[in-house]
């Protein structure tokens, strides 16, 4: 017996502080359908789904399941009604086993030895939807794809008929995404319905049967997937024509800016995270590092930017050895850094925008003279960055934490590029940003390349790497599985290399 044959959201309106996150939104989904919910960040997709899941109460509107008004006041109600949600950031306890994570929310688990019950029941689901998972593994031992399967299992155990997935592929390798789509198709055939939140057009086109587009809290369109193309969807989502292709100017690469020789770096747990890497980055070049996060990218970037000591090997910036020099020395020498965790390491959230705009330069001329800061100059400088990098803010005199993620990242990029560094190191620069901000930041990176800088780009987003890199290295367990020219790289090969199933001989100096 299905709990949900069809579900309808009617006239959903929700405002926060007088600002409409959702305004009179209608949505419909039936059993066996995969509905794509498309929209930029801040368009109101997640608000809408949180209303459906019972995390927020709408100001107006109703949710109708099988023709009857479903009163959903909290997540328990929606779980009971047969709705399951898989959040973008997994809600899993890392130190616990798969079975323990599933048992956590289940009411009908026996009090004693709950794991045994889960273990027995898990194999049924695994067979039905063709997903293998070991119930006794700890979550931290699993890959992102496997963790996602645990989330799906959690929903299945709760007998969810409608599954909401918030950007499910953002953390997956191409192969894992394919597996996920396989699972989604099997679930749809089985009569489940799935709502897929995404801003990746390719995905929507591939897996969804219908699509609904929202922009600024309003439904702007909806169609069967056969009736639309990517370009049309992008226009609906952004509200203007979007250039999905970048015109990368073909450039001869210049002289070498960074040389890394036989570098070994330890991770937090004392393991060898970077395992003897050697490579070079040149001027007029974007050198990309692809790989599933946790394969040594963070440690490599930290070693290059002076935030972490390497255990052996050399890092050379334009003939100067900068191995194990402090971050300030490295920065002054010409390496700037757009860090992975931008809120934690890129800014000081409570300081004003103009103070954040001079971080790393605050101690030196021209901003500081004899211990005193020259605020006129600093504010001037900040106004320039705000203008040049299209940062939308009411004023530069507000704490930076009040800006949106995209604008914060634009400020960081602006700050790091303004000094015209020899090498720009950017880690996941567009992670979690909407299509507009993403496009903008990629353009800035390419602009730096054209100006003659070298760029080291670490990313999990293969589309991004293909679009802006000249060469792509694939890292797995701290080693390069190969360095490819972006022009003749094959996405399938890169997927295999990311999981360590394919290794090409690394030719340096190419």
């Amino acid at each position, binding site marked *: 017996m299905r709990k949900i044959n069809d579900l309808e959201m009617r006239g959903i309106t929700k405002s926060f502080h007088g600002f409409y996150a959702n305004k009179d939104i209608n949505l419909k989904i039936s059993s066996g359908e995969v509905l794509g919910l498309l929209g930029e960040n801040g368009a109101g997709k997640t608000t809408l789904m949180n209303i459906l899941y019972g995390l927020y109460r709408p100001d107006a509107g109703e949710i109708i399941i099988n023709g009857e008004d479903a009163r959903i006041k909290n*997540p328990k109600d929606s779980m009971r009604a047969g709705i399951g949600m898989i959040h973008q950031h997994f*809600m*899993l306890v890392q*130190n*616990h086993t798969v079975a323990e994570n599933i048992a*956590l*929310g289940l009411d009908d688990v026996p009090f004693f030895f*709950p794991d045994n019950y889960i273990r027995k029941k898990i194999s049924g689901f695994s067979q039905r939807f063709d997903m293998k998972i070991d119930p006794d593994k700890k979550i931290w031992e699993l890959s992102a794809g496997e963790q996602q399967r645990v989330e799906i299992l959690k929903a299945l155990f709760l007998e969810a008929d409608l599954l909401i997935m918030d950007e499910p592929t953002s953390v997956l390798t191409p192969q894992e995404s394919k597996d996920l789509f396989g699972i989604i198709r099997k679930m749809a055939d089985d009569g489940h319905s799935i709502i897929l939140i995404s801003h990746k057009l390719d995905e929507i086109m591939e897996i969804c049967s219908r699509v609904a587009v929202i922009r600024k809290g309003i439904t702007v369109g909806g169609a069967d997937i056969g009736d639309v193309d990517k370009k049309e969807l992008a226009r609906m989502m952004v509200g203007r024509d979007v250039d999905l292709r970048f015109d990368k100017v073909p450039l001869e690469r210049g002289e070498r800016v960074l040389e890394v020789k036989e570098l070994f770096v330890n991770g937090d*747990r004392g393991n060898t995270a970077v395992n003897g890497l050697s490579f070079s980055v040149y001027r007029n070049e974007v050198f990309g590092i692809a790989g599933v996060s946790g394969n040594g990218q963070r440690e490599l970037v930290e070693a290059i930017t002076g935030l972490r000591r390497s255990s052996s090997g050399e890092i050379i910036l334009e003939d100067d050895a900068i191995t194990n020099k402090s971050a300030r020395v490295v920065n002054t020498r010409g390496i700037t850094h757009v860090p992975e965790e931008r809120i934690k390491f890129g800014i000081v959230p409570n300081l004003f925008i103009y103070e954040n705009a001079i971080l790393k330069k605050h101690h030196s001329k021209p901003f500081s003279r004899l211990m005193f800061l020259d605020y006129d100059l600093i504010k001037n400088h900040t106004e320039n960055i705000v203008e040049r990098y299209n940062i939308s803010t009411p004023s530069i005199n507000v704490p930076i934490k009040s800006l949106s993620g995209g604008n914060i990242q634009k400020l960081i990029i602006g700050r790091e590029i303004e000094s015209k560094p020899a090498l720009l190191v950017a880690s996941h620069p567009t992670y979690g940003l909407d299509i507009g901000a993403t496009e903008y930041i990629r353009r800035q990176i390419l602009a730096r390349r054209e100006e003659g800088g070298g760029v080291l780009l670490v990313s999990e987003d293969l589309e991004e790497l293909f679009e802006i890199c000249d060469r792509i290295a694939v890292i797995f367990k701290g080693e390069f599985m190969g360095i490819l020219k972006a022009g003749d790289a094959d996405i399938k090969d890169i997927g295999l290399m990311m999981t360590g199933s394919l290794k090409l001989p690394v030719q340096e100096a190419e």
Partner: protein
Amino acid sequence: MEQIITSVLTRTLIAGTPLLLGTVGEIISERGGVMNLGVEGMMAVGAVSGFAVTYTTGNPWLGLAFSMICGALFALIHAFVSISLRANQVVSGLALSMLGLGISGLWGKPYIGKPLAIKMEAVNLPYLRDIPYIGEIFFRQDPYFYLSIILGAGAWFFLYRTKLGIVVRSTGENPRAAETQGINVHLVQYLCVMAGGAFAGLAGSHLSIAYSKSWIEGLTAGRGWIVIALTIFSMWDPKRAFTGAYVFGGIFVLQYLLQPLGISPNFLAMLPYLTTLAVLVFYGLSLEGHRKMHAPAHLGEPYKRGER
């Protein structure tokens, strides 16, 4: 010689009992995500309340029960301040220690120097007590000892083999995940902190109505702080708490043993605390990463509902 060894071992188990009880309680509290540095104060309150009730009613079992209730109620202060008001847990815990020592001193004034007429007597378990050596060491102890073994093992079973144990541990690891699964995070944390208080109260009354059988101010003598160290030493697992508690119990007994050899009593009195420091330094230096993997991931951070 044999006699000395059996006597030392017997007394080691006695000295280890309050440490075991306190540590198991603190483990439960911290597994739920709340660090409570008020163990010293909670033990003191448990000790004096247990003693007062035993002294007036003549029933040590009533004293035992009362000490647990007082410990739990006293811990409620910490729960309210650190969970509901989301105050800094370190500050609140330290304040609780000071407050507990103060209250116990005030409450215990009339009882100073008065011996208990009826105290918690040792219980000889039939048959088992006759096993040579082992019987003498393990099976002629007071009820607190048996209780601590049952509670320690029970706590392990509860945490690692029951549904509710998963709920408690998940709350300490990732309260947000627990909440999306429909769990009342704050309620779980309140109950864990109060359970920790009850265990600490029990540990305190062991000192006053079974171990020293009298009340003096400062009876707990820093055992609450050792408990904090033992919680880390145990890596938040009640199984390891047994080892830790009895090793430290042994060090307490060692003081009396070494004194006749001419070692300064002042130095010997320092021994448990020196060992505590040594253990903490050792863990801090060598097992940093290892330790991180075992500490509840959300330990010490207040949780706010509905916040990202």
